[in-house]
Every structure is written in structure tokens, then in C-alpha cells.
């Protein structure tokens, strides 16, 4: 469904210095699969999603979605792909126009892509579709008439998800969708994403720095460092038997919510003794 082949992206700074943000990445994502891209800041994970979404042009290499090469696709193909592929960002507030009501935020992609959703004539259809979407993400229909600032972070993220689903996409790219949320809210949003995936047969490309979150939702995990994928594999295998040194370092650094398994605590009591 998604094929990335030998993808490279260089950024050139005004001073002439270049940064290789994505370094020779090849990756495929199957239909209805959740591939999680993990990495620390500066690893290139967000740049990779931007290349995949066609928001950035690669320096070299190809991105193919459903067999269509983004670089050589026609305008019509590209428009179709943009319906197929939606995105949810980390900060739901900065990705919404604060002056619009929720109904108009969620309806934006509909108005862009569906003639029948436009104008006064399309209003009834548009609002019915928005109600349907809001209920799918667990919000009350009354939410449609309100503004983004009236909602909590978790609810706003549900609105972002509703908007992403408006056009029945097959692929949803999620860039740190729960990183700004409290843990209890994060758990609810992750549950929602899992339920939506089951119901709608979605394919997820999920970017996160949180390995615990990755381990819970991934079918496969790609570990990125300095622009390159250093290891990729099924979630179970990768977390149980990490092959790459860097994956092990990352896994070891994740604090475990259990004092009896804390390495730092163990090391400290050894010193104290």
C-alpha cells in the first residue's frame, strides 16, 4: 500500500551546510497494518512522514502510494491520493482554526473534496456527516456547535481524528498524536484509534518517541536514528530481541513504572551497601 524506496532528504541551510534528515530509507506498509516509527528528536521521523504525505519533495528516491509514484503523478492522481491519506498532528490546537466551530473544522476536507458538501445546498449532508464522525470518535453531537478552545486536549485530539476520517481515507499518518496528553487520556485515545482501525480497516503510520506506546499498538516497528532506519521488525520480536545496539540503548532507557525493576534504583542500592 505504501512503498518508500531509497528515500533521501537533504536540507540546505543558508550558510551552505547540509543536513541529511532522511538517509536512504526503504520501507513498505501493508494494507491494515500499523507501522510505528520510533526515534529521538532529530532522528528524521517527522521528515519521513512529510515525504510520505507529499508535503516535502525527496532529494532522491521514490514514494509510491497504491502503486502511484508521488513525484510523477498527475494532478488528478495527487488529489485522489490526498483523500486517501490523512494526518493527525501532536498539537490539536495549532492544527485547527480557533475561529471556526467544530462543525466547520471537521467539514473542511469534505468541502474541499466533495462538491455535494458545498454551500447552502450541501449543508444538511455536511452536518449529518459531521455528526456521524463526531459520534464515531466518542463526542456528543452538541460538540459541533462549539469552538476548539471549549474542549480539553483529549477531546480536541478526537476532533482532529474525526476530521482525518471525514473522507474515508485508507491511510492515516499519526505524528505523536498522544504525546501532549495526560496518560489516562492517552490511553483512551489509543483505544479509540485501535477501535477505529478495526472497524474501518485503516492503515496507520504512527510516529512516536514513546517506546511503550509503540509496543502497544504496533504491528511492525521501525527504529530511526540520524535519518536512517537502523532496525525494523515485528513489534514482538523487536522489543524482545532487539538486534541493533541503538534499539537496546533506547529500550534500556525507558523508565519502567515498577521500582522493583528499576536499574537506577538497583545500581544505587549496590553503591549504598
Amino acid at each position, binding site marked *: 500500500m505504501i512503498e518508500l524506496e531509497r528515500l533521501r532528504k537533504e536540507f540546505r541551510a543558508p550558510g551552505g551546510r547540509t543536513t541529511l534528515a532522511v538517509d536512504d530509507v526503504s520501507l513498505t506498509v501493508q494494507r491494515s497494518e500499523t507501522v510505528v516509527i520510533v526515534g*529521538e*528528536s532529530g532522528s528524521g521521523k517527522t521528515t519521513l512522514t512529510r515525504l510520505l504525505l507529499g508535503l516535502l519533495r525527496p532529494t532522491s528516491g521514490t514514494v509510491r502510494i497504491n502503486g502511484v509514484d508521488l513525484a510523477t503523478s498527475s494532478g488528478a492522481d495527487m488529489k485522489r491520493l490526498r483523500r486517501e491519506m490523512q494526518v493527525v498532528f501532536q498539537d490539536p490546537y495549532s492544527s485547527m482554526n480557533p475561529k471556526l466551530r467544530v462543525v466547520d473544522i471537521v467539514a473542511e476536507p469534505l468541502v474541499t473534496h466533495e462538491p455535494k458538501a458545498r454551500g447552502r445546498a450541501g449543508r444538511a449532508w455536511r452536518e449529518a456527516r459531521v455528526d456521524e464522525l463526531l459520534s464515531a470518535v466518542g463526542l456528543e453531537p452538541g460538540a459541533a456547535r462549539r469552538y476548539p478552545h471549549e474542549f480539553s*486536549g483529549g477531546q480536541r485530539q478526537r476532533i482532529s481524528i474525526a476530521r482525518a476520517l471525514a473522507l474515508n481515507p485508507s491511510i492515516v499518518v499519526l505524528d505523536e498524536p498522544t504525546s501532549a496528553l*495526560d*496518560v*489516562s*487520556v*492517552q*490511553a483512551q485515545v*489509543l483505544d479509540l484509534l485501535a477501535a477505529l482501525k478495526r472497524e474501518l480497516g485503516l492503515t496507520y503510520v504512527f510516529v512516536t*518517541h*514513546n*517506546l*511503550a*506506546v509503540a*509496543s*502497544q499498538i504496533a504491528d511492525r516497528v521501525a527504529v530511526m536514528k540520524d535519518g536512517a532506519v537502523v532496525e525494523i521488525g515485528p*513489534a*514482538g520480536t523487536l*522489543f*524482545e530481541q532487539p538486534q541493533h545496539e541503538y534499539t537496546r*540503548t*533506547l*529500550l*534500556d*532507557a*525507558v*523508565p*519502567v*513504572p*515498577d*521500582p*522493583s*525493576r*528499576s*536499574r*537506577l*534504583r538497583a545500581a*544505587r542500592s549496590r*553503591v*549504598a551497601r
Partner: protein
Amino acid sequence: MTTVLSIEKLSVDFELGTETVHAVRDVSLDLAEGETLAIVGESGSGKTATALSILQLNPVPPAVYRSGTIRFGAHDLLALPEARLRAIRGNDIAMIFQDPMTSLNPLKKVGRQIGETLQLHRDVSRRDTRSAVVEALAQAGVPRPDERAEQYPHELSGGLRQRAMIAMALVTRPKVLIADEPTTALDVTVQAQILELLVQLQDRHGMAIVLITHDLGVVADVADRIAVMRSGEIVEEQPCEPLFAAPQHEYTRSLLAATPRLAGASEGA
């Protein structure tokens, strides 16, 4: 164990126009010498408002200190005039934050600002200040501390800035360090290093730490005792091991249940 800091029946309100938010409600907490007390909670739980009250750093207005006492040595910090408080801030009780740029001045070289903290509270010569600064940076694990002292904050990476802030907080050898989400903005590998550094420095200098965090994984690594806050109240307070092994309050259990864990990761090591 001697108690260094004792918060008793603290209540703090935020008066926001027509609405009053009871940010901290009747909170009592004791901090023993050399221990790490973690205050855990989600956003809006009052954990930061509680910690900022210790040095009266909540912005007034909207904050109003309704009632309570905060005993530190012979003083009630809440009743202390600003001038006396200033002699304690950064000296006996120091603070570090999530974002090091809230403590570091972008216009001053790192070494100079660390030195200012020391000169403000101690009668030290320029040369002694200089060597104390380099020593503090070295103890905070900053490589080539004499060169780093001559750099501006923007020239340092996130992890190094955090270390510089820790050096600044600890240069006066405070008895109490208040750390408000000190590793939240950091990558996990850097977080692990900073936590290790904090416990090392604590073991060396014997300071007590009040750690504010939402991350139960971090708490499991460093806390001796934990207070769980929700809606301005402490719902549960326990030593670390029993809190994780047998949480008493429903909310603590739900927090633990919601904390994502590495599925299938190898046990121990």
C-alpha cells in the same frame, strides 16, 4: 530522619475573573533530609502550584495563598517578607524546571550566570567563583566545563542546557532542590542520564529533592516517597515500593493502569 521542609494545610486559589480555582486544597507534606519526595499527578492536579508555593513563585495575582504554613528551619516561608525569601531562594532551596531556558538568560554566558547565583549568596572572590562554576559544571557532567562556561545557552544541546541549569541550582549546595518535570522535554536516553546525575549529586551532597512529574516510570526510578495529587488534593501518600505494589486509592490504580508499558520487553537485566 530530620524534617527539612514541612508543608501544613496549604491552600492556594487562583482567582480568574469571576471564577475561583482551588488549585491546592489543604495539602500537608513533610520532606525529610536527603530524601526524594515525588508529587505525581496529571495536568491541573495542583502539583506544580504546590511546589511553586514553597518559594512563593506562583504569580500573584491570580494566585492567592489562602491558608497554611511552610516550615523551613525556623521560618514559615509563607509569612516571610520578600527580602528574606530572596536570601533563601537559590541558596537553601533551589529549583530546576522542564525548560532550561526559563532559568537561563539567553544573553549571558553560562558560566557568568552560574557565578552570579553564587556571588549573590556568598562572599566569594572572582577567582573562587570561577573555579566553583567550573567545578559545578563538571559535577553536572558537562564535558570540557571551562570551555562550556564561556558559551551562551543557545550553543548547548538540550541535555547540556539541563546540566547547566542543574549546575546553577546546585552551585550553592542547597538543602532542598525542587525539580519541576526536569526530564519531560528530553529524549529517553538523555532523560536516563539526567536522572542518574540527579541521584548521584543527591548521594554526594545529601540534598532533599521534591520531584514534580507526571511520569510514573521516572518516579519508580528515583522516588523514596510519593504523593499522588488530583484536583488540588493529595489522594494518596506512600513510600515508593508499596505505592506501586499495593496502591490504595482508586485514582492511583487508574493512573498506573493507564501508564503505557513496554509490552514483552525482557525482564530486569
